[in-house]
């Protein structure tokens, strides 16, 4: 399997009236074909921005991709002409958004919205686009698709809309599916159905998935590998089982401690992470997690640790060894 996507030193800034927001601060990662990667972190840590910016979907200005490369195949997505990028968006890279209630156009029928995507990317005529749309709707588990083509989004429930969004993202058999918190706006039973659907579709179509989420439960059931983001930095990268059994970064550790677990006594309280995420307006000095970290050392406040490979497939950006409590 080859490398599908390689992001190198991506930096994204927003120029606002209050100053420059450093949303993404030099993140690098790569994706293999057919691999499922989860990108986790709390709200505002740059998860969505880092994904949207590689497809140049952030508004510019105020947004700006200050540095970095995003190699998709041989080509740098950040340097492509707008017309070429339009062919890649929806063609080779599909995207599913957080809120299916607002991501479908309320005045167009579901059928029209899917066929339109197909016709924008393939040379298919009306009839074959229709056949393919029916096939897609069937694939994402929308029964009686024939009648559903003429329906408007308001006639769909939240789960059905998200299925329609997934059908649209998969219309042109993309090599990469970016799912930006696709289950956040849905209730728990529907969330489980959507995750199950994603698993089935991955099995069947073999595309790579980047699943942005802050739900670690979803991550455990779905991902091969996890990237943990904090304040615009990647702080830890690990295979999913390793991350849950041996978290190395103090932030990952705190995230896991904050989860409710069935194997703990009911009386035990959840442990929140003290403090608040740093203000991204200020240029970071030292490790951005240092003010909230239980393992903090003097070095942390002076120097921001780089993301380095510690074992094969495991990377960490931390000066401390949380297993021993000693400096690394």
């Amino acid at each position, binding site marked *: 399997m080859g490398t599908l996507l390689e992001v190198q030193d991506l930096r994204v800034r927003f120029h606002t009236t209050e100053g420059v927001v450093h949303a993404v601060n030099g993140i690098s990662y790569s994706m293999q074909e057919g691999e499922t990667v989860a990108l986790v972190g709390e709200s505002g840590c740059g998860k969505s921005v880092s994904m949207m910016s590689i497809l140049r979907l952030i508004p510019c200005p105020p947004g700006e991709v200050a540095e970095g490369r995003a190699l998709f195949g041989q080509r740098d997505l950040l340097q492509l002409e707008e*017309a070429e*990028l*339009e062919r890649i968006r*929806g063609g080779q890279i*599909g995207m599913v*958004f957080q*809120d299916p209630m607002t991501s479908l*156009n309320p005045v*167009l029928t579901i059928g029209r919205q899917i066929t339109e*995507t197909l016709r924008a990317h393939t040379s298919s005529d009306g009839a074959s686009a229709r056949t393919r749309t029916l096939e897609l709707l069937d694939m994402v588990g929308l029964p009686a698709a024939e009648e559903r083509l003429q329906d408007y989004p308001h006639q769909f429930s939240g789960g059905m809309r998200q299925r329609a969004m997934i059908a649209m993202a998969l219309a042109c058999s993309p090599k990469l599916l970016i799912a930006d918190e696709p289950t956040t706006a849905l209730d728990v039973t529907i969330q489980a159905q959507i995750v199950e659907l994603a698993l089935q579709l991955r099995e069947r179509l073999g595309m790579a998935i980047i699943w942005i989420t802050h739900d670690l439960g979803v991550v455990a059931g779905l991902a091969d590998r996890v990237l943990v983001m904090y304040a615009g930095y990647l702080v830890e990268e690990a295979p999913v089982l390793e991350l849950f059994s041996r978290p190395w970064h103090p932030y990952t550790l705190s995230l896991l401690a904050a989860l409710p677990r069935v194997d703990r006594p009911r009386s035990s309280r959840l442990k929140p992470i003290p403090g608040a995420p740093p203000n991204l307006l200020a240029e970071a000095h030292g490790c951005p997690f240092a003010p909230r970290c239980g393992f903090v050392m003097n070095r942390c406040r002076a120097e921001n640790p780089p993301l380095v490979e510690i074992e094969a497939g495991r990377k960490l950006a931390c000066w401390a060894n949380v297993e021993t409590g000693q400096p690394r």
Partner: protein
Amino acid sequence: MDTAAGLTLPRLEELEAPPLSLAQLFWRRFRRHRMALAGAVTLALLTLYSLGGSLFLTEAFANFTQTALRLQAPSASHPFGTDTIGRDILARTIYGGQISLLIGLAAMLVELVIGVGVGALAGYYGKVIDSLLMRITEAWLNIPALFLLLIMAKSFGGRIPDVQLLGRSFSGSVVAIILIIGLTSWMYLARIVRAEFLSLKEQDFVLAARATGTSDLSIILQHILPNSVAPIVVAATLSVGNAILTESYISFLGLGVQPPTATWGNMLEGAHGYIEQAPWLWIFPGTLILLTVLSINFIGDGLRDALDPRSRAI
């Protein structure tokens, strides 16, 4: 079946009825607006009058001058009387109505193309394009419309040759008036469309459309425009009435459509000297203008209520 509390459960057929389509919802709401309904009926009758009337009376008759019979009061042979040079007023209101309605609709189309075009580009692209287009719009708004109309009418009026359409020959001044009215009235529509585009382009479905590789042009035409259709329809309807009124002003001042082609407006031109002597000169065309504009404005009101997505009334 009745429950103890006196509540009636819906019958089975009601529960099984398919949900109302958008068109049905629209019709339900529009029907409830009595004045709008009356306006629609009146406008239909007026259209029938000016289109159907031409089956009975020829245009040659409408333009036939008999100075011997000038300023005749309504009678059996001339039900609406005759004008200052002896033409039949009934026939002239019929043919004049065709021109007035044509001017109203065509000027609205011109306004729609310019207004939607400018508003959509300014609202969607923003930044420099927006500033530039909006400054141009404001500059147009700053020119007193009536003077601009009069000057344009005077300088373009005689230059456009006559046009043959649907077996009729139209004075070139009709085309000139349509363009002039369209060119002086698109600014409000442009602002409405820009405002709609500014808010709609931030919606998630536009981002989702971009993420599926939709081009700017089809986002504008297929995604944003259909969502802003309600205010555009209302503004366009009202602008038909305004265009008919504007044509009347200019024609009344003698700079609009040139005789012998009749319009309701230029029929009033010679009438102001005979307000008391020969009231039939202005009563008939004046009433027709009034009814048409009033009906259109009521229809516009009804459309505004019926198309408002925030209105929850069924």
